[in-house]
């Protein structure tokens, strides 16, 4: 049940983010929509790794190493998402730096003013 709810939410977040990025006209708002979509993708990947009734892949007194295989969830998606979040911050910083330079050039954040590559 938890998995299905989380998966559905992740998909809805991706859709909201894509719709926002496609329809907004302000560059900064597009970047906000991108971060929302990014969060949705991360949620979907983590939800796929979750197995009902199991616990986190950290061994300690409550989860001894001997019975680990029967009690922990899949650690690989978590490792993937962990690095994806960090890279996501780097990508956001890069997009913001470019938005700053574009504003410096044109004095506007409206995407309709940037028409050099329009066809």
């Amino acid at each position: 049940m938890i998995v299905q709810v989380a998966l559905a939410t992740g998909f809805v977040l991706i859709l909201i983010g894509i719709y926002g990025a496609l329809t907004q006209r302000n560059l900064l708002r597009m970047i906000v929509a991108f971060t929302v979509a990014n969060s949705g993708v991360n949620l979907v990947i983590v939800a796929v790794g979750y197995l009902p009734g199991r616990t986190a892949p950290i061994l300690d007194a409550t989860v001894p190493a001997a019975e680990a295989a029967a009690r922990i969830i899949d650690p690989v998606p978590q490792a993937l998402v962990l690095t994806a979040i960090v890279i996501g911050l780097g990508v956001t910083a890069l997009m913001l730096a470019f938005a700053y330079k574009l504003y410096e050039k044109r004095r506007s954040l409206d995407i309709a003013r940037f028409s050099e590559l329009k066809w």
Partner: protein
Amino acid sequence: MVETLITLAAILAGAAFLMALYRFLQGPSSADRVVAFDVMTIIGITGIVLVAYMEGRGIYLDVALVYALLSFLGVIAVARYLERGY
């Protein structure tokens, strides 16, 4: 007894969360929304502690520590933005 208390705590935290969310969405001024954001952060810490108790994993509390020590920074960022601080 403990079960009842935990259930009660979860219900209270959920109700408080909904009220703060309403204030965040409706809030007429920026200050209302920022304070609602801060309240939701605190309730989020409550949620983390509840999850740690229900799953029976004490190590989850590390996340609550990070959350508590860092989340107030967001409010300071908005406040400094509103007073043209950086």
